[in-house]
């Protein structure tokens, strides 16, 4: 199938009324949770996971994806108007967005965020289509050794590149992998760590784990934090109109941000949050007057917003073509695909063209929809900021309970979510990343299976990871990634 045929095919999938409705619903819900501080895309996608059991696989993925990129749009609103990032990706947008709002240019800042997000997404789709084909062809030559090595590299990259102490991040990944071991071992049929509990035979439920770690832990942490004083400023449609000078300033940052985000989004282990931070750093570096940053520089909004949206789209490249999620949100997407019996991988384009191309085209439609609706509706989104979190979180808790319960009618799972939520919150307070735990949980079983297979093929010879050039490349990259924090530490102590 050529790209054009694929897109045409995707159009027939994405324009099915049911898929279209779920796409629009997801985009709106994503914007809403992005706008509201205290609940992010991760929590919203988790809450929607149970629904995906009841709808078609295309509609399910299209909806979840729309929540993800929709939240990237919405996140900017609270960042700019209240200096409260609605999503982690939009945290950098506060740096120059809030000063702009204080200077009475909130409308222009919002316009910039929306337009940059749109441009970043659309160009991200082009990168996605280009990369997916190449990577898919490349990955057909991958064996179990390559997969195992690549997934380990992804996990190590996610722990050492991100923020926080690498040892803490790695410990979360390993804990996640160990949690993934719970249940019946597929290779031997042995029940591991089930302690006689029938409910654990299939392993720990992904929905329960994600809801506890994100839905619940976020709610606990935000009950007090998301409560603030003073209403947000009023934004009228006329204020959105940028000057010619503003427009001239944002074009180049959008281009740079998109390229940067497209690259880092597609790498396993780095995602849209890192991309937006890097996008900001890049803009400040290339700026002629870097001192304007932090004082309301419009480039400081355009670059990162384009970067995180572009990354949110290209993050689907490794997820769909290799079956390897690069960030926890993609891990949930992978989980949703597996629920529907679709194992992503190099054969994805051939085996499930409906899913792949439908998703690609729905990205375009969803983003068009977001741009067309969000600018005129900006007043409504701003007024959403007036809803105090205390009116929302009790309802969220009830929906968490019913969502978990609906998966398999088990109240045991609700009690488990309560426990996981408490642990997840405690970990988050101590700056251990629950997101990495989830990533390890999803990738762990895949790594174990591939590692076993690779060593079975090589008759237990570990040299297989050195002799196969591609696998060797991943191993070298992993070692370098592990050495990186060590070197940084040495330099800090030495100088």
């Amino acid at each position: 199938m050529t790209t054009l045929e694929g897109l045409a095919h995707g159009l027939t999938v994405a324009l099915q009324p049911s898929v279209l409705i779920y796409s629009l619903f997801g985009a709106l819900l994503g914007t809403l949770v992005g706008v509201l501080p205290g609940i992010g895309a991760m929590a919203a996608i988790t809450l929607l996971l149970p629904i995906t059991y009841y709808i078609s696989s295309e509609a399910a993925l299209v909806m979840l994806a729309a929540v993800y990129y929709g939240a990237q749009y919405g996140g900017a609103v609270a960042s700019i108007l209240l200096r409260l990032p609605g999503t982690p990706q939009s945290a950098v947008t506060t740096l120059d967005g809030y000063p702009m709002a204080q200077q009475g240019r909130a409308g222009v800042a919002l316009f910039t965020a929306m337009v940059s997000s749109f441009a970043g997404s659309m160009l991200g789709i082009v990168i996605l289509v280009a990369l997916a084909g190449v990577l898919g062809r490349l990955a057909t030559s991958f064996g179990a050794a390559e997969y195992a090595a690549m997934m380990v590299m992804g996990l190590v990259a996610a722990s050492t590149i991100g923020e926080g102490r690498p040892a803490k991040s790695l410990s979360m990944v390993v804990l996640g992998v160990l949690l993934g071991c719970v249940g019946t071992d597929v290779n031997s049929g042995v029940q591991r760590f089930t302690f006689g509990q029938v409910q654990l035979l299939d392993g720990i439920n992904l929905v329960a784990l994600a809801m506890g770690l994100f839905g619940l832990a976020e709610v606990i942490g935000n009950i007090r934090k998301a409560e603030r004083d003073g209403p947000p400023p009023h934004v009228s449609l006329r204020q959105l109109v940028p000057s010619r000078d503003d427009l001239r300033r944002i074009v180049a940052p959008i281009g740079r941000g998109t390229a940067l985000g497209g690259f880092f989004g597609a790498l396993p282990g780095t995602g849209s949050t890192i991309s937006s931070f890097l996008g900001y750093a890049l803009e400040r570096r290339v700026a002629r007057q870097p001192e304007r940053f932090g004082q309301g520089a419009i480039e400081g909004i355009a670059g990162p917003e384009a970067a995180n949206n572009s990354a949110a789209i290209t993050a689907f490249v490794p997820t769909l073509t290799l079956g390897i999620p690069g960030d926890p949100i993609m891990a949930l997407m992978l989980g949703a695909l597996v629920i529907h019996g679709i194992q992503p991988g190099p054969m994805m384009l051939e085996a499930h063209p409906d899913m792949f191309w439908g998703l690609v085209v729905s990205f375009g439609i969803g983003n068009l929809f977001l741009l067309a609706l969000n600018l005129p509706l900006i007043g409504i989104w701003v007024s959403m900021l007036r809803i105090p979190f205390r009116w929302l979180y009790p309802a969220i808790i009830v929906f968490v309970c019913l969502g978990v319960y609906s998966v398999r009618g088990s109240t045991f799972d609700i009690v488990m979510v309560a426990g996981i939520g408490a642990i997840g919150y405690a970990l988050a307070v101590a700056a251990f990343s629950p997101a990495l735990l989830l990533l390890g949980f999803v990738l762990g079983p895949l790594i174990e299976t591939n590692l076993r297979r690779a060593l079975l093929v090589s008759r237990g010879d570990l040299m297989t990871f050195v002799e196969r050039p591609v696998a060797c490349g991943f191993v070298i990259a992993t070692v370098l990634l592990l050495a990186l924090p060590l070197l940084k530490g040495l330099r800090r102590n030495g100088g």
Partner: protein
Amino acid sequence: MRRDLHDAAWGGVLALVGLAVAAWAAAYYDFGGLRRMGPGFFPVVLGLILAALGLLVAVPALGRPGMSRHFAWPETVGVVGALLVFGLLLNRAGLVPTTALTVLIASAVAPRRGIVWRLVLTIAVTALTWVLFIGGLDMPIPAWPRSF
């Protein structure tokens, strides 16, 4: 100097968890070999790695100052309690009383005191839940206690 007790404590806990997992797996599951890994191989190796990482987190933390972090105890208790009540009550009391009680418990830890707004919220959320899950999705849960 205030030591980084969070990292020290958590590192210690993680190290212990790792050791326990490795020991359990070594005792009960076949380790196998590189050529044919048994079900115990992965948990044993990773348990030991986790133990090492836990120490790597804990030991340096003892020698550096840490910041005290705010732990929202009342909120944690309220939210976890609300979930436990929901889980334990749902099959016995039915959806409507369970939801109402859950919302009342959860909202008790909100920064705003007072009972009126909480009652309004309770009625609203309970009604919404009933309409969505019993009326709309027709979930097989009793709405009221069985004796009704």
